[in-house]
């Protein structure tokens, strides 16, 4: 693909603007997505940070859950950060009642695993496949991955916990590269989208 891939950012709630800016910096054509019909024509999709319970409810309410599940099953490349990682998990360890995910990565996640806001932190994290040294990880009431299936690659750990994973063309991080101005993780995703197109 020579032109920029078109990558949507699920804009139900959360830090959508930061992802749009990071994707643009990584040379993608970024667009906000809120409706099922807006999924057509996308080369990839980002599920932003936010509140996973809210995103889950709004997705169900506006008929996005099933179309998104189908798109992911059909191979749409997706990247999720924080709440986005939760939404891409096949299983949540401690879901709120009625909280459903889109799935796509064979893993079990624990919500708010690193603690509440007072425990939110920044630390350097080395991510496999990201050149140029560790990335600044911003962890905000962050989840971690409890366990992964045989086909899920672990790309990063912090303090003994899995914080970045990939299965096929679906990528997820517990932390928020979109808040740092370092676009290397977004570049990793955009280059995977290009390669798959």
């Amino acid at each position: 693909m020579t032109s920029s891939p078109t990558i949507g950012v699920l804009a139900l709630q959360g830090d959508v603007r930061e992802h749009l800016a990071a994707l643009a910096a990584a040379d993608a054509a970024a667009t906000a997505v809120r409706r099922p019909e807006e999924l057509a024509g996308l080369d990839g999709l980002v599920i932003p940070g936010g509140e996973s319970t809210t995103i889950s409810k709004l997705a169900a309410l506006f008929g996005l859950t099933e179309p998104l599940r189908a798109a992911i099953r059909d191979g749409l490349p997706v990247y999720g950060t924080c709440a986005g990682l939760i939404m891409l998990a096949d299983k949540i360890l401690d879901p709120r009642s009625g909280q459903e995910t889109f799935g796509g990565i064979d893993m079990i996640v624990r919500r708010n695993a690193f603690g509440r806001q007072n425990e939110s932190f920044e630390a350097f994290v080395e991510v496999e496949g990201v050149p140029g040294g560790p990335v600044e990880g911003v962890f905000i009431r962050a989840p971690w991955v409890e366990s992964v299936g045989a086909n899920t690659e672990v790309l990063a750990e912090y303090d003994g916990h899995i914080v970045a994973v990939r299965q096929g063309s679906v990528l997820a991080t517990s932390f928020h590269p979109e808040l740092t101005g370092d676009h290397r993780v977004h570049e990793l995703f955009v280059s995977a989208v290009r390669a798959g197109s």
Partner: protein
Amino acid sequence: MSTASPSAAASPETGTARVKRGMAEQLKGGVIMDVVTPEQAKIAEDAGAVAVMALERVPADIRKDGGVARMSDPDMIDGIIGAVSIPVMAKSRIGHFVEAQVLQALGVDYIDESEVLTPADEVNHSDKWAFTTPFVCGATNLGEALRRIAEGAAMIRSKGEAGTGNVVEAVRHLRQIKGEISRLRGLDNNELFAAAKELRAPYELVREVAELGKLPVVLFSAGGVATPADAALMRQLGAEGVFVGSGIFKSGDPAKRAAAIVRATTFFDDPKVIADASRNLGEAMVGINIDTLPESEHYANRGW
């Protein structure tokens, strides 16, 4: 596979400006609801709230009851923290940094240094840099917003007039802040020094706002939102999300109204969704006309 280096693992940094401001970025596009019991907190979470504000009485009742309004009972805050998994905010009085210390010790996710409670200091706001827990503060204009940010606030909400169910002051304050930001955009470097003096705000922050065309922190709206259309109005005017206080649990059907306000906040630019969300909600809170409210009962005048 590779893992984090031991040195980085050994020194995670908590309470940084990026972590505090980044937390508010995660709330954007959402609704933060006032709750006074764990049961209300669950209703709010089920309706799709991105966070709850734990307080003893909603502003409408503070107005009715009078007296000194203070930080909430720690047991009540604990109960709300235990009942939901979304972030829990709580209010301290303006300048009452010990109430803020208590709220931090209780583990709330955000502290609102709020004009809705009775101010504890008529000169000084709390030094918010001294805390790990981030703060949100109210503002009626850009200078006030920037003074709060200079003191360490990681999120700003336009004040409006809490507990009235009347959106007119929320509109006034948000328009004021957005209008002043637009004017800064048109100034040249020479003029920014005088602008900082007029705004009574630090020059560095004024320059940052002129460059960004927005505050360096997330801006929500508060104080008077009672209907889905009110919430959508504030978003169309440029608020990145809304606080709803008395508007939900002083209405006829709180669960339904809460969910409707969440929907209208997400699809704030789609009148059909707002129309659907506005149907059959039962009675809205009664509301107060601001011109009949004595000046001394204007909460927005508290803080400076």
